[in-house]
């Protein structure tokens, strides 16, 4: 398992290749990548991501560990960025490796659902109208109940 909280961009291709290599018994590798989305076409200038150093790493490690307990996984990778990002930049990625795809897909979805509302990150959108904290959505909280 590897968890990385970083300001620097990551190379999705290189991370995925490195993750997939060396898992000869794993038939499935699933990756998910979150990208800064400009929801109101053209108005988002910057997405600022604040986090709680210390707790963030701890929460991500716990969430990844829980995924490993629930599914039969060969490996888990979580990378999440903080700082100032522009539309189109990659915010985060998760990767899961499993013998079969069902475990890999489900574990990746579980990781995403938990990252959304249980990892201490807060997003703020900077537009030409000013800055606004992104509000948590009820659907994201509700999504946890299916696990």
């Amino acid at each position, binding site marked *: 398992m590897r968890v990385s909280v970083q300001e620097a961009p990551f190379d999705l291709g290189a991370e995925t290749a490195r993750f997939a290599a060396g898992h000869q018994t794993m038939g499935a590798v699933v990756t998910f990548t*979150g990208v800064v989305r400009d929801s109101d076409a053209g108005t988002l200038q910057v997405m600022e991501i*604040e986090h*709680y150093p*210390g*707790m963030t790493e*701890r*929460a991500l490690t716990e969430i990844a560990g829980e995924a490993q307990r629930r599914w039969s996984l060969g490996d888990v990778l979580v990378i*999440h960025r903080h700082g100032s990002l522009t539309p189109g930049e990659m*915010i*985060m990625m998760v990767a899961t490796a499993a013998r079969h795809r069902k475990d890999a897909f489900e574990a990746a979805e579980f990781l*995403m659902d938990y*990252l*959304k*509302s*249980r*990892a*201490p*990150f*807060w*997003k*703020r959108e900077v537009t030409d109208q000013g800055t606004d*904290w*992104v*509000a*948590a959505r009820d659907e994201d*909280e509700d999504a946890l109940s299916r696990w």
Partner: protein
Amino acid sequence: MNVLYFAWVRERIGLPREEVESSAETVSDLVDELVAREERYAAAFADRSALRVAIDQELSDFDAPLKGAREVAFFPPMTGG
């Protein structure tokens, strides 16, 4: 203990962390003490249901005891991913 604030809680209070001398038994008691101090705390804690709390970097709740806690953090619901 160390009290930390994040996102708009940090902005309303005007600082990211502070050392607080308190004998509060629970998180709620600590919030009551802070709110009694100054208006900016009252503004930040006006709606406690809109806030989350972590004790020593573990998510907790407002009824939780503070005995032995070194670090308490207040923040809005998280928006990761």
